[in-house]
């Protein structure tokens, strides 16, 4: 190609034109290339006809037509492009394609490994039917170390951090299996419930790749967790349809597939965690986050429900009916309110001025605090009467952990609404608080069995 002195500004202008065109969603990079080839052809013809290159560029662009109009025509022909598609394996022709393909192989290998790992204890005589306790205590250990391995591989985490992560999982495996629990032990059930929470934060350390002290990285992990939850539910729904159809079809030919399905269902459920994580990783910049959308949708409903609940309680003069499970219900309420708050915060532009939704959130948090306060007051009056069992103490501790977070959040949010501070402290408080959940879960896992003598 001959390059005259005047060619460079033209190159620059073509580059700009190409960039603008490439921003249109209906026009793919290949189309931009094709149109650019056309533009260059037109410019060459016009230059041959005696125009100066910059004049030729202007004429050629004009003849090409307004970019809006072109984009509209492309959108009419390729309307599917207006729907964002999650393409986890781009064309193998470019360099990024090879990388994505390799990642897919790693992910599927890890998912299969998680599924098979679940089968290994069975080979050593630990049948699932007669060792429910073992499987309940260890199920998170079949998959979370592999998920952590995925992030270690993807984020190229150094040997130092790798060592700590391995140590954390090794320690968890020891703790999960060292205690001599009896059958139907409460502390064993609590351990099974709380170990995944503590280990999830270990996954978070790998996810943040050494930046786990950083508030921004922590918030990314929160976003990741929310999206993974939604993707996992979707995958589970698909899996449910698959299982139902499989059983139905085999039943039609007189074969009972239930045993096989039951045998492999947990393995698939574990593998799906890794596949779901990978999808969330792949989609994070492509498709809008779903958790904040659901949050926006449901916050008004939950706020209204809570306010009506409080009003009803006040008018009817009914106290909270103290039963054994009432604390669990209020724990769940606080978890839910916290999730609504957390995912609203995660999606909020910190620089945006306060709006009606902020007031709604504060109303939600405060009404949840009041409801929980009433419940706690009622319970504390009778706690001695019930006696302290592991379950009750765990529920109470969880309640306090959540209450502290929401109480301080409400305070910070009120300051923000009155214009006393920016939004940033609210976000920082949420991310700073994350280790507390892990710490509490770790206490339940490690201390409770000892404290209550494994009962």
């Amino acid at each position, binding site marked *: 190609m001959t390059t005259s002195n005047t060619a460079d500004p033209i190159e620059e202008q073509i580059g700009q034109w190409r960039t603008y065109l490439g921003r249109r969603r209906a026009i793919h990079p290949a189309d931009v290339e094709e149109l650019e080839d056309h533009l*260059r052809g037109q410019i060459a013809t016009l230059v041959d006809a005696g125009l100066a290159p910059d004049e030729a560029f202007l004429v050629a662009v004009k003849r090409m037509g307004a970019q809006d109009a072109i984009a509209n025509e*492309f959108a009419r022909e390729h309307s599917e492009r207006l729907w964002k598609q999650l393409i986890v394996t781009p064309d193998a022709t470019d360099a990024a394609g090879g990388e994505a393909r390799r990642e897919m192989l790693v992910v599927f290998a890890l998912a299969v490994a998680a599924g098979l790992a679940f089968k290994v204890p069975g080979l050593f005589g630990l049948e699932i039917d007669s060792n429910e306790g073992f499987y309940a205590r260890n199920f998170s250990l079949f998959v979370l170390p592999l998920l952590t391995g995925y992030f270690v591989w993807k984020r190229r985490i150094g040997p130092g951090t790798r060592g700590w992560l391995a140590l954390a999982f090794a320690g968890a495996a020891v703790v999960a299996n060292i205690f001599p629990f009896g059958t139907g032990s409460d502390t064993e059930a609590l351990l099974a419930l709380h170990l995944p929470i503590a280990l999830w934060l270990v996954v978070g350390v790998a996810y943040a790749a050494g930046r786990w002290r950083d508030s921004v990285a922590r918030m990314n992990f929160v976003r990741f967790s929310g999206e993974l939850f939604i993707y996992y539910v979707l995958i589970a729904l698909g899996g449910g349809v698959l299982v139902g159809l499989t059983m139905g079809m085999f039943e039609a030919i007189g074969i009972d597939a239930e045993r096989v399905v039951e045998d492999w269902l947990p393995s698939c459920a574990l593998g799906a965690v890794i596949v779901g994580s990978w999808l969330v990783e792949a989609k994070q910049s492509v498709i809008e986050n779903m958790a904040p959308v659901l949050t926006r949708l449901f916050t008004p409903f939950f706020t209204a429900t809570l306010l009506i609940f409080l009003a009803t309680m006040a008018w009817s003069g009914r106290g909270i009916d103290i039963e054994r499970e009432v604390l669990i219900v209020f724990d769940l309420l606080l978890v839910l309110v916290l999730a609504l708050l957390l995912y609203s915060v995660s999606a909020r532009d910190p620089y945006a001025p306060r709006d009606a939704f902020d007031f709604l959130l504060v109303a939600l948090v405060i009404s949840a605090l009041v409801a929980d306060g009433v419940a706690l007051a009622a319970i504390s009056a009778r706690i001695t009467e019930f006696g302290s069992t592991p379950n009750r103490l765990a529920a109470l501790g969880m309640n306090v952990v959540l209450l502290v977070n929401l109480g301080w959040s409400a305070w910070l949010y009120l300051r923000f609404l009155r214009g006393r501070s920016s939004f940033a402290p609210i976000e920082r408080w949420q991310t700073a608080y994350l280790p507390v959940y892990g710490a509490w879960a770790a206490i339940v896992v490690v201390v409770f069995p000892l404290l209550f003598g494994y009962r």
Partner: protein
Amino acid sequence: MDIGKDLVAASATPLVLAILAEADTYGYAILKRVGELSGGRLQWTDGMLYPVLHRLERLGHIEGRWGTSESGRRRKYYRITERGLAELAEQREQWQTVDAALRNIWFAASLPGGWTPAPTPS
């Protein structure tokens, strides 16, 4: 003389198919050929050619493949398919029918007596 938008759009398909029936070629060359054929009087907005090409490709009338231009850049060449040739024959018949009808009326209009405007219904 500006040719109406609808007419340009309607004639695009047969023109593109016919030009590709001559030889495999690429977008800009198709446009140049249209210019030659119409003596420069049939002007398309250049960018609009490509959605048309992509539609024909989707319908299986033509096939696109990436090659290299003389200057070494990537360039998309198009080739007409069997189905495209059938479509072209079909289109040709339709256009010839329209053309014949128009010719007849132009001829009738040029006869002595000229236009006899249709009587307006009362």
